[in-house]
């Protein structure tokens, strides 16, 4: 068996603040196999996004962050790597898409200019014409009808859905082995979100890209992910294949999270406890979902 694309083992993160240390992650473990789509689900502040930032190597240089544990990317240890080496991986081997596509694009450059910069990351000597050709091809892949016009536009001239697709095209342009999607499209309306997610799903399947999908939206996770980790207050509380998790949520927190989804059939927003001692119950791993190397 080849090494997983991403393997996080016992990752802990603390922030040093004026009032002492704050624990953010209490030793989480997760892994993503090549081509697999794994979701990390939890509420705001549960540690989803910081996990993504550690993987990208953006927190390691922060002086107030204390990180321990292992992060292996394509079989290489990210934690012992130099900043420069991590820097080389960003934008080439791993990339990320964000919640709000429109604000993720710089308003003063055209899409084409920004696309070219992304392509230059992987191929510094790329010719202008070749870069444009590649960009057109990538935009065509995300079902953009008039790629030439889009390349000459600014982000604010395009719709949110268009920008989201541009972001997806840019993120996948250099064929990264890992794509981190941090609540993609949360800022968009649901129909557009569903559309772009389907598109992203098809593309990552085509390129065999591994995806770490970060979300609080269970409906979206159910559509998109193969496997799910549920995170609560910096601890993974449940790990299961998507189908198993939705059919049979075993952890109290997962059940609460699921019942928190408002039903279209009425009844308003359900009443659930903000916190319960049950939520802190230990990790529940479903059958067939162990971490690599861990005793089954």
């Amino acid at each position, binding site marked *: 068996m080849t090494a997983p694309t991403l393997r996080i083992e016992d990752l802990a993160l603390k922030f040093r603040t004026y009032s002492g240390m704050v624990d953010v992650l209490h030793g989480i473990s997760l892994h993503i196999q090549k081509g697999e789509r794994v979701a990390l689900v939890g509420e705001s502040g549960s540690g989803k996004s910081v996990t993504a930032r550690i993987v*990208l190597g*953006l927190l390691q240089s922060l*002086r107030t962050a204390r990180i321990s544990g292992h992060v292996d990317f394509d079989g290489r240890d990210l934690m012992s790597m130099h900043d420069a080496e991590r*820097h*080389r*991986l*960003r*934008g*080439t081997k791993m*990339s*990320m898409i*964000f*919640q*709000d596509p*429109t*604000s*993720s*694009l*710089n*308003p*003063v*450059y055209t899409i084409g200019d920004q696309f070219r*910069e*992304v392509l230059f*990351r992987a191929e510094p000597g790329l010719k202008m014409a070749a870069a444009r050709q590649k960009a057109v091809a990538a935009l065509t892949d995300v079902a953009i009808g008039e790629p030439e016009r889009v390349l000459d536009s600014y982000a604010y001239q395009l719709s949110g859905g268009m920008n989201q697709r541009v*972001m997806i095209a*840019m993120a996948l342009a250099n064929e990264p082995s890992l794509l981190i999607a941090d609540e993609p499209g949360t800022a968009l309306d649901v129909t557009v979100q569903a559309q772009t997610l389907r598109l992203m799903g098809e593309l990552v399947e085509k390129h065999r890209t591994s995806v770490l999908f970060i979300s609080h939206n269970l409906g979206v996770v159910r559509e998109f992910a193969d496997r799910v980790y549920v995170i609560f207050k910096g601890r993974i509380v449940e790990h299961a294949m998507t189908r198993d998790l939705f059919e049979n949520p075993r952890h109290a927190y997962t059940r609460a999270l699921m019942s928190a989804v408002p039903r279209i059939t009425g009844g308003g927003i359900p009443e659930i406890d903000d916190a319960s001692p049950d939520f802190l119950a230990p990790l529940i791993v479903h059958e067939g979902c162990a971490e690599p190397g861990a005793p089954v």
Partner: protein
Amino acid sequence: MKRTLTILIRNPLSLLGLTLVVLVVLSALFADFIAPFPEHRGAIVDFANFNRAPEWPYIFGTDLVGRDLFSRILYAYRISLLLGVVVLVIAVPIGVTIGLAAGYLGGWTEFVLMRITDVFLSIPPLVLAMSMMGLLEPTLTNGMLAVTAMWWPWYTRLVYNLARSEREEGYVLAAEVIGAGKAHIMFREILPNCVPSILTKMTLDLGFVILIASSLSFLGLGVQPPTPDLGSMVADGSKYLPDSWWLTVFPGLAILVAVFGFNLLGDALRDILGVEQ
């Protein structure tokens, strides 16, 4: 560009500002052709026509050694504008770079850079420039140096605040994620988004630099005679008020026209570029 011009021309105040600025710039550029007595910018005496009230061909009158005031004002504009442009050309890049570094990098860099800036900001600008001029020889070059030293911190503070808020924008994080370097993010991502504010402030400041430079030479610390300078012309003439009123009034009006024009134009630019105050 066309749209910008249309807006400029539609608003009467903006139009006035633009007209005044164009007038000032043109008269400085073409002083050699417009001035009736171009040789009067230097050390020349003409006692036959000294201290004359405005009359043809001396439309603004003559000074105490018989030089045509109108010609001298045109050449003084040239010096003032040159000083303003040079000061901004030096001060803006310094201020902007420090502001960007402090605003984007944060941490110790921010602390050290901004405290140094605060020291400069805490000294009243004119006092700072005056003490520098007092230490140095009063020449045009040193005048530029002194005004530059008091001017860059304002740009640092402006850009620092802009960079602080731009740093939180999604595109900065997106750039970090695709592996953009720090310099790239500062100068290629954040800076272009600050340009409207910087441009507006530069236009407004051109007027203020002229005012400050005139104040310095009014106090005898700026450009030295016989080089024509609006500030020293006002200072010289003020001793002969109210009898020889033209000695003071016309150079004073000249300062007013320039400062007022750049201010109106700066305000207009602010509206057009959508810069918040």
